[in-house]
């Protein structure tokens, strides 16, 4: 794994603008998807002979179908407000990682073939021909964008680079140049039901093991039900919650909250994935197929509500697009939001007083919170504006005594990406991931030094995995990233739980 040579950028200030290094990340090419992975998603197996015509036809189709995409290509005035807003630019200093430069990689080709000036006077308007080198450049730099949308917050026109990245990846897939990491994973969701390829037997065994662990730990039998017909709530959570640390501690937290709230719930082995990488590759049909699994599971199990676990982009897809992709949801109980976030559920229970919480169980930590990009900028939570920022913090503060926010310019709607989002959480991009995390790591370093912060909490499976891999490069331990529901799990006292106090 190629992270041994990475020069870890140590920034004095999280948003420090580097001296540009042209070409610093040139030629970075994540592994191409194999023909088998491509074809499973309905894409050509390899670069098609008439790639140029196909790519331009796809671009025309996207401009026609997605008005925002065309407007974004047309309206940029090169004001420069976005130039220093991308964590990959801050971490790599490659000027092509400035959002406007990233957009221009595609905009220049759009101008050449779809605008009057570009057709007749390309040299006047920065228009260029589509060549195989351009295609490779797209593949490289559109896989150096995590679609986090931080730049769009600062653009006076609201141009969303993520939309352009998604369109570029959709074009690349259409000509046979897909990315291995994302496309192999989407294929597993279509075939098995989750990103991991975790089959029902293995999933059931994992859940049973967790039930044993909780009982060993608390003396209380807490269930993690799977495929239980007639349950009220279907929990859809990222499959990393069944596999990775600290994700799995969060899953234990959800189970304890449901148990204590006295609701009936179930997981589904058919829809055992909240993540929807169809968003990352900008492909509507794949995004729709992944979402349809949730609809089928909800119908087959006869549930009344759907709740999503801690997953960033899953929540964006769920909150913003689920009705279009897999609705209508008229068979669910209209008294509850469709869908609901696990944090909304937990926060409601805390407010109702159904959870007995001992905050001192988290006293060995001082916590800060990393807002996940897709939750912060692509959705909302609860019934008030800004709920996606306040509800996670409210829950953390209800279960922890020590909480500190990071620099205001790096959280809330201005939050920095973890460096591994948008389909980049793969070992072949480790160098980029380490560099892209540097602004967040600098912000964390500030609160560690000034306020004694020991742990950072997150509500996204990608953020958690990314930080557990890159934090050691910045002098932290991998277990200093925690799940929000891990903190809830630590603090919650279940009815009948054996506590230290009771034993003494």
């Amino acid at each position, binding site marked *: 794994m190629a992270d041994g040579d990475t020069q870890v950028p140590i920034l004095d200030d999280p948003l420090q603008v580097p001296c540009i290094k042209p070409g610093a990340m040139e030629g970075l090419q994540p592994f191409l998807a194999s023909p088998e992975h491509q074809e499973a998603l309905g894409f050509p197996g390899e670069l098609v002979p008439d790639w140029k015509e196909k790519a331009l036809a796809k671009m025309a189709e996207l401009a026609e179908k997605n008005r925002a995409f065309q407007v974004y290509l047309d309206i940029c005035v090169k004001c420069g407000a976005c130039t220093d807003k991308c964590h990959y630019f801050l971490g790599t200093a490659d000027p092509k990682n400035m959002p406007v430069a990233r957009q221009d990689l595609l905009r220049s080709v759009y101008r050449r073939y779809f605008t009057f000036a570009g057709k007749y006077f390309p040299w006047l308007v920065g228009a260029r021909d589509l060549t195989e080198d351009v295609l490779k450049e797209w593949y490289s730099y559109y896989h150096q964008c995590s679609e986090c949308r931080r730049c769009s917050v600062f653009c006076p026109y609201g141009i969303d680079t993520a939309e352009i990245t998604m369109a570029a990846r959709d074009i690349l897939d259409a000509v046979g140049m897909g990315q291995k990491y994302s496309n192999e*994973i989407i294929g*597993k969701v279509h075939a098995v039901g*989750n990103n991991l390829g975790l089959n029902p037997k*293995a999933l059931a065994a994992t859940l049973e093991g967790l039930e044993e662990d909780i009982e060993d730990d608390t003396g209380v039998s807490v269930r993690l039900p799977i495929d239980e017909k007639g349950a009220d709530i279907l929990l859809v959570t990222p499959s990393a919650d069944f*596999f*990775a*640390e600290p994700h799995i501690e969060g899953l234990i937290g959800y189970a304890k909250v449901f148990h204590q709230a006295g609701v009936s719930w179930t997981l589904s082995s058919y829809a055992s994935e909240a*993540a929807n990488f169809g968003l990352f590759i900008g492909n509507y049909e794949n995004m729709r197929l992944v979402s349809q699994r949730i609809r089928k599971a909800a119908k087959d199990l006869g549930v009344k509500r759907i709740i999503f676990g801690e997953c960033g982009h899953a929540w964006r897809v769920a909150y913003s697009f689920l009705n279009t992709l897999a609705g209508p949801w008229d068979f669910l109980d209209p008294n509850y939001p469709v869908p609901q976030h696990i944090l909304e559920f937990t926060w409601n229970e805390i407010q109702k007083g159904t959870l007995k919480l001992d905050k001192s169980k988290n006293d060995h930590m001082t916590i800060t919170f990393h807002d996940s990009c897709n939750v912060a900028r692509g959705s909302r939570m609860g019934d008030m504006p800004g709920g996606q920022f306040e509800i996670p913090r409210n829950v953390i503060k209800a279960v922890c005594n020590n909480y500190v926010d990071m620099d205001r310019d790096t959280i809330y709607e201005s939050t920095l990406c973890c460096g591994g989002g948008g389909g980049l959480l793969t070992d*072949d991009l480790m160098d980029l991931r380490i560099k892209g995390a540097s602004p967040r790591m600098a912000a964390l370093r500030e609160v560690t030094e000034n306020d004694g912060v020991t742990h950072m909490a997150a509500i996204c499976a990608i953020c958690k995995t990314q930080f557990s891999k890159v934090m050691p490069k910045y002098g932290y331990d991998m277990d200093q990233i925690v799940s929000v529901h891990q903190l809830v799990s630590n603090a919650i006292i279940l009815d009948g739980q054996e506590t230290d106090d009771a034993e003494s």
Partner: protein
Amino acid sequence: MSYQLNGQTIETDEEGYITNLSDWSPELAEVIAKEEGLEMNDERWEVVNFLRDYYDEYQIAPAVRVLIKALKKTMGPEKGNNKYMYELFPYGPAKQACKIAGLPKPTGCV
């Protein structure tokens, strides 16, 4: 990428995970470990053997938590913990140990 063993070429994917799981043998595990800069010892074998047994039964690698819980029983709490697993396999017990055990790489947000 590929491995050489007894004059035979064993095919792998771009990252060194073997393509045909049936190509695996204990000798090959030693070769893969060497490529990773590791020497196989009793503890590493214990992990690799557990992963292979689990894969036989479930057709997927276990969660790190499941691995550690099992090793705690056989190796004791000093060695059956996350920190020690990363000492044995610096690139992670799931990914690096799976590679040596001849199993597919875990995919997803992990």
